[in-house]
């Protein structure tokens, strides 16, 4: 039980942190200074490219570019890794069974497949994380609107974001409250029984809270997606970024 609850708490913290960026987003690094209207499509290309190949020699250079972006954007490497390590590990564990043959010996091509697969996940999540770590949420929204992404779609994204932060914040509160009031260790059967009702209460809380958050957004002007926009920048940083992304595209084709 303790293990389950601890894992759950770790996971909650992990996901909450994935969307928390105040330590990196306002630093004046490379990606932070790059105009979001270039950064988002460019990074999207970099995210899609590695998913088109299993060739490790094509994937490896991407790693160096990502490392460059991490350092040039003044993101602490430890913080960066702590954001993403769970995803490749998880995908490795998921595909690992495919590396075993019927007699339970591990096959080399199978293992390589599992490794390359999780490496691709690592690259994709790294790029996604770099976008999140260096772009204020309001800027992501205004960029989507700039590219004429329909308002209804953007709204769904905003609401999803609110739900995610809300859910994790609430989950952490519920778990801490339970922990602070737990007196004796429960048997497994009791946990199973209580767990169900705790989960039910949790979902009701999320539901009611989201209703109140909805009222709050109404009272604060509504939830039209009309964020502030700024004139497009084009300087050395932008030119450098475009060159690199183009080079990658050319190398992949």
């Amino acid at each position: 039980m303790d293990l389950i609850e601890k894992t759950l708490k770790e996971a909650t913290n992990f996901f909450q942190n994935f969307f928390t960026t105040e330590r990196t987003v306002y630093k004046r690094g490379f990606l932070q200074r790059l105009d979001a209207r270039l950064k988002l499509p460019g990074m999207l290309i970099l995210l899609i490219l590695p998913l088109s190949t299993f060739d490790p020699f094509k994937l490896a250079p991407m790693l160096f570019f990502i490392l460059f972006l991490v350092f040039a954007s003044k993101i602490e490497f430890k913080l960066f890794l702590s954001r993403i390590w769970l995803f490749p590990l998880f995908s490795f564990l998921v595909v690992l069974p495919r590396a075993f043959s019927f007699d339970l010996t591990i096959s080399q091509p199978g293992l390589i497949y599992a490794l390359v697969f999780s490496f691709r996940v690592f690259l994709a999540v790294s790029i996604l994380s770099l976008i999140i770590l260096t772009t204020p949420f309001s800027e992501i929204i205004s960029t989507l609107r700039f590219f004429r992404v329909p308002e209804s779609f953007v709204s769904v994204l905003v609401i999803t974001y609110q739900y995610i932060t809300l859910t994790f914040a609430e989950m952490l509160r519920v778990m801490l409250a339970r922990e602070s009031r737990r007196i004796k260790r429960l048997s497994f059967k009791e946990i199973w029984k209580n767990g169900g009702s705790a989960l039910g209460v949790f979902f009701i809380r999320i539901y009611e809270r989201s209703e109140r958050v909805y009222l709050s957004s109404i009272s604060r002007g509504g939830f039209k997606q009309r964020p502030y926009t700024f004139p497009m920048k084009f300087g050395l940083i932008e030119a450098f970024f475009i060159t690199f992304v183009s080079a990658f595209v050319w190398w992949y084709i």
Partner: protein
Amino acid sequence: MDLESGLPKKALVAKNISYTYPDGTLGVRDVSLEIFEGERVVLLGPNGSGKSTLMMLLSGLIPPNKGSIEILGVEPSRKNSEFLRRNVAVVFQNPDDFLFNPTVKEELLYTPAQLGIPFDEAIKIAEEFARRFEIDGILEKPPFRLSGGEKKKVSIVCSIMLNPKILFLDEPTANVDGKTRKKILEIIQKSSSTIITATHELEIVPKIGNRIILMGTDKRIRADGGLEILEDEKLLEGAGVI
């Protein structure tokens, strides 16, 4: 003052409003009241007497099951929701319900963006208020990582920034330290808005208003009058505040 008639203008009118929550719990029962522009009203009542529910109703956020409401001369509806959002601000009792943006800065700019106020103007106002309320050091933090008092301050700044005509404050001084409490009381005293404050703390009533609407555990209005209500122990006891 209404120049034509020489009478003070009505900010809020409620006629026999009742509200029951979807699960069947009674929120408020048969409330009628009139509040004039510039008035400082205290909604006083014990926990669960329907103060928060009444604020949601009076600000037009939830429609009553029975009765009618008029805010600044209009009935709340989809059509005039923009007018209401420009003129009516609410500070929720629980900041966790109220704040939903990724950073404090984005919280402060949320309403100006929604109302189409130019960025340069909005950021100027936001920064000035942030300095005045000493939240300028936490502008880049996510609201859910703040202390209770900080969250409250951020919520209040979000609401008063654009100088609303009517301001609802739901338990603004609950769970805040002495210094913040003083600041909040100061805002209420200095503001020119019509302010309705819900509280269960008797001591702060004279500092935030000169009219008391007393709610009882039966979710009805028990009394509506001046500060002399604070002297009437029997009345207060009956309502459940002492």
